């Protein structure tokens, strides 16, 4: 091929014949279109992707709702048809306390959260003539999953439709940034339904699993609502073991339990074991140690733990087992389950390194204890 006769003007269509002028228009028209309609074109492209995700969220909500109703009808023998009551639950909302003056807001949030839990539990119970606490906790958790999925769907759809109605591209940008994270969580919630129905332990249960084995053959006492504790001994130290009451699908109330136990037993050290969300690039089921109260949730339990530890001048150490959101709320993976032994060994090392013989150490297994006894 001969490149020596290559004509740049001819190539870019800037010659003086008719064809060249037409070629120039071919270059200029798209530039004009993009200057005036660029945002609208971007809005159309972005909104198509978001629309697909909103359809998926709607499908997830509907599927999980059907699975919940099917489970109640076929396994729990309800006294009335559960559909109407389940649907009315899904639309329940929670008005968080006003935070203009944040002083004293934690007891208000605590009261609100507990009232909501108690109310839901009572409503679930009212569907049946007879139902075990294990099944109530399961249905309660399944309801929370469907409610969360419905909330994701409604909020995402609202933001999408508002941006479209206003033809406002910048409005859709935050949604475009957030949607992958929303979908990750929604996918995890959708997959959690199956293991929840089967009563299988989830990744978040690693904390209760570690402490549960330490509690075997000890005398268990009630520490707070759906929370148990017992005393044990290790290398001359007294151990106070706390976890949610298994095998129910519950995280218990570890904060309240610690508030009840600590004033009487005065531990010298607190060790908390929990699942933690892994950062991108970190290995699943890896173990990390640190300081402070390792507990998630809305923050009220952590507040109580920090408060009681500070008042009694007790240091808090933490061991966390890293995992993704999906691993945390779906059936426990083999890698995470196999780490329980290693975590337990590290807890014992931590006790020996950070306390002396004759001292008391409190070990708290934080997480949902579904399918895990003690």
């Amino acid at each position, binding site marked *: 091929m001969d490149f020596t006769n290559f004509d740049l003007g001819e190539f870019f269509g800037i010659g003086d014949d008719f064809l060249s002028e037409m070629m120039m228009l071919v270059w200029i028209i798209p530039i004009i279109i993009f200057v005036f309609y660029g945002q609208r074109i971007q809005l159309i492209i972005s909104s198509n992707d978001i629309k697909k995700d909103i359809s998926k969220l709607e499908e997830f909500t509907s599927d999980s709702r059907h699975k919940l109703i099917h489970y109640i009808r076929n396994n729990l023998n309800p006294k009335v048809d559960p559909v109407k009551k389940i649907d009315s639950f899904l639309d329940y909302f929670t008005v968080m306390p006003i935070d203009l003056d944040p002083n004293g807001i934690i007891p208000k949030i605590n009261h609100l959260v507990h009232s909501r839990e108690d109310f839901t539990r009572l409503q679930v119970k009212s569907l049946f003539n007879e139902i075990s606490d294990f099944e109530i906790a399961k249905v309660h958790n399944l309801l929370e999953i469907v409610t969360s999925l419905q909330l994701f769907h409604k909020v995402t759809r609202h933001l999408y439709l508002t941006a479209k109605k206003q033809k406002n591209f910048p409005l859709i940008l935050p949604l475009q940034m957030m949607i992958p994270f929303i979908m990750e969580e929604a996918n995890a919630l959708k997959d959690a339904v199956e*293991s929840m129905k*089967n*009563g299988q*332990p989830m990744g978040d249960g690693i904390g209760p699993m570690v402490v*549960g084995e330490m509690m075997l053959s000890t005398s268990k006492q009630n520490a707070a609502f759906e929370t148990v504790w017992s005393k044990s001994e290790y290398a001359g130290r007294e151990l106070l073991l706390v976890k949610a009451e*298994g095998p129910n699908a519950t995280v218990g109330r570890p904060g309240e339990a610690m508030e009840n136990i600590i004033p009487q037993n005065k531990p010298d050290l607190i060790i908390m074991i929990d699942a933690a969300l892994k950062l991108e690039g970190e290995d699943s089921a890896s173990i990390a140690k640190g300081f402070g109260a390792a507990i998630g949730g809305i923050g009220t339990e952590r507040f109580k733990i920090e408060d009681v530890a500070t008042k009694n001048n007790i240091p808090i150490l933490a061991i966390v087992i890293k995992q993704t959101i999906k691993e945390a709320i779906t*059936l426990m993976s*083999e890698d*995470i389950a196999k780490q329980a032994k290693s975590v337990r060994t590290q807890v014992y090392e931590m006790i020996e390194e950070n306390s002396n013989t004759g001292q008391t150490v409190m070990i708290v297994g934080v997480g949902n204890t579904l*399918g895990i006894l003690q």
Partner: protein
Amino acid sequence: MSKSERKITNSYTYLECKSCKNTTKRKFESGDCVFQSLGKCSECDADLMVTMIFGETIE
């Protein structure tokens, strides 16, 4: 169908003998719980305890 939707998770129950530490892995059955005593060991007739319940994902 997306890649994630093609994944199948099988759930297993892992049993360990309290005495001889002999281990058995079998498919999860409804009602299985971690730290539950389930039957006797085929080797030494001591109690078998569930030590793990976990999922294995097949793509």
